[in-house]
C-alpha cells in the first residue's frame, strides 16, 4: 500500500471509530443527563418552597422581560407550586449582577401573600471564606417570612435585619438587593397574590 494512503487510512479509521463511540455514548447518556438536571431543579425548588404536590417542573409560566444588552430575548420561568389544588408558592431565579467578583444566581420562593419562603444560591464566584458565606443555610434562613412590608430587607449596615459578614458586605448586599427586586417583580407580575 502506498505509505501516504496508509497514513490517511489509519487516521481516518481512528476518527471514524472515535466518532461512532462518542455518538453511542452521547445517545446513551442523553436521557440520564436530562433527568439529573430535572432532579437537581426539583431539589432546589423543594428547598425554597413549602411542600407541594404538583408536577412543578411542567407547571411553569414563562414571561418575556424584554431583551438583554446583546439583543437576545430574556424570558423568566416562574415555577408554580400547588398543594391539593391550591397555590402555595412561586419560585423563580434572580441574578445579582453586583457581586464582588461576578454574577450571583439566586433561586427564590415566594408564597401567595408575597412573603419569602426560602432562597438558594444557584451559582456564584464570591471569595471563598468571605463572600461565599452567602450559601450558608443559617444566613439564607434570615430571609424566610420577610416581604416588602414585613421585616426590613437590608443588611444590618444599611439599617436592615440581614447579617453581613466581617470583611464582606458586598456579597450579602448584592443578594439582598436582588431578592428585593425579585419581590417587586413578583408583585408586578402577580398583582393579586397569584391568581
Amino acid at each position, binding site marked *: 500500500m502506498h*505509505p501516504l494512503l*496508509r*497514513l490517511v487510512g*489509519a*487516521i481516518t479509521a*481512528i*476518527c471514524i471509530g*472515535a466518532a461512532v*463511540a*462518542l455518538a453511542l*455514548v*452521547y445517545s446513551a*447518556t442523553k436521557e*440520564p*443527563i436530562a433527568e*439529573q*438536571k430535572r432532579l*437537581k431543579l426539583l431539589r432546589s425548588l423543594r428547598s425554597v418552597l413549602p411542600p407541594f404536590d404538583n408536577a412543578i417542573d411542567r407547571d411553569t409560566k414563562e414571561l418575556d422581560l424584554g431583551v438583554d444588552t446583546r439583543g437576545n430575548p430574556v424570558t423568566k420561568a416562574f415555577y408554580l407550586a400547588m398543594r391539593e389544588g391550591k397555590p402555595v408558592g412561586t419560585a423563580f431565579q434572580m441574578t445579582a449582577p453586583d457581586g464582588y467578583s461576578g454574577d450571583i444566581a439566586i433561586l427564590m420562593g415566594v408564597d401567595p401573600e408575597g412573603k419569602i419562603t426560602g432562597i438558594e444560591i444557584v*451559582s456564584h464566584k464570591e*471569595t*471563598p*471564606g*468571605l463572600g461565599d458565606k452567602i450559601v450558608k443555610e443559617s444566613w439564607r434562613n434570615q430571609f424566610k417570612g420577610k416581604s416588602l412590608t414585613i421585616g426590613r430587607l437590608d443588611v444590618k449596615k444599611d439599617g436592615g435585619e440581614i447579617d453581613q459578614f466581617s470583611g464582606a458586605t458586598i456579597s450579602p448586599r448584592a443578594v439582598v438587593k436582588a431578592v428585593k427586586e425579585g419581590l417587586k417583580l413578583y408583585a408586578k407580575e402577580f398583582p393579586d397574590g397569584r391568581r
Partner: protein
Amino acid sequence: MADAKTATHPGEGVAEPIAVPRPSRLKVWAQDFVNGVRAENPVLKLVLGLCPTLAVSTSVFNALGMGVAATFVLTGSNFVVALLRNFIPGRVRIPAFIVVIASFVTITDLSIAALSPELYEALGIFIPLIVVNCIILARAEAFAAKNPVTQAVADGLGMGLGFTLSLLLLGAIREVLGNGTVLGYPLFGESFSPVIVLVLPAGSFLVLGGLVAIFNLLQPPHKPQPAGLAGAEASASGGH
C-alpha cells in the same frame, strides 16, 4: 529499577520489549504500577499535570472525582494506544493519540454529567481539559505506544493512582486547614478559624510547593546536586 519499563525500542513491531533476565509477568506489571505511584509520581516528582491538580484540589471530594476521571482516561487511552500501536503509522501518531484521548475525555465528561451533576459543576472546565493533561499524552507516547496492552494498562492504573493520591493529599490538606472540614463534614468546633488562603489559588501553589519539597527530601538523591549546595543550606531553610 525502571529498566524493565525503559527497555523501549524506538521501532515498531517489537512484541516483547523486556530485556534478558526476564522477571515474571506479574512482577513487571507490579513494577510498572508501583513506578507510577512512587518513583515517577507524575505530580510530585515529574511536576506534570499541574493545572487540574491545583485547580480542583480545594476539597477531598473534588480531588477524588478528578483523580478517578483522569485515571479512567489514562488507563483507557493507554489500552487503546497499546492495542493499536502497530497499526498507527509513526508520522501521525500524535494526532491519533489525541483523538483517542479526546474521545475518552468526552465519554468521561458525559458520564460525570449523567452520574453526578454536583461533581460536574465543581470540576467544570477541568473535565474537558483532561485532554491536555500532559501526563496522559506523555504516557501514551512514552509507554503505551511501545509496550503490550497489559503492561500499558498497569502503567495507566499506576500513574493514575499516583496522580489521584497526590490530588487527595493536596485536597485533604487544603480542605482540612482551609475550610475545617473533610468531605463537607466539620472537623473542628465553631471556634476554629480556617486558613482561608489555602483554598484560594495562591494557597494551592504554596501547599504543592511544600509537598514537592517534602517528596524530594524523602527520595534518595538520584544524582548529587551541584556541590556545596546540598548540606549547609538545608539547615538554613525556613522562610526568608
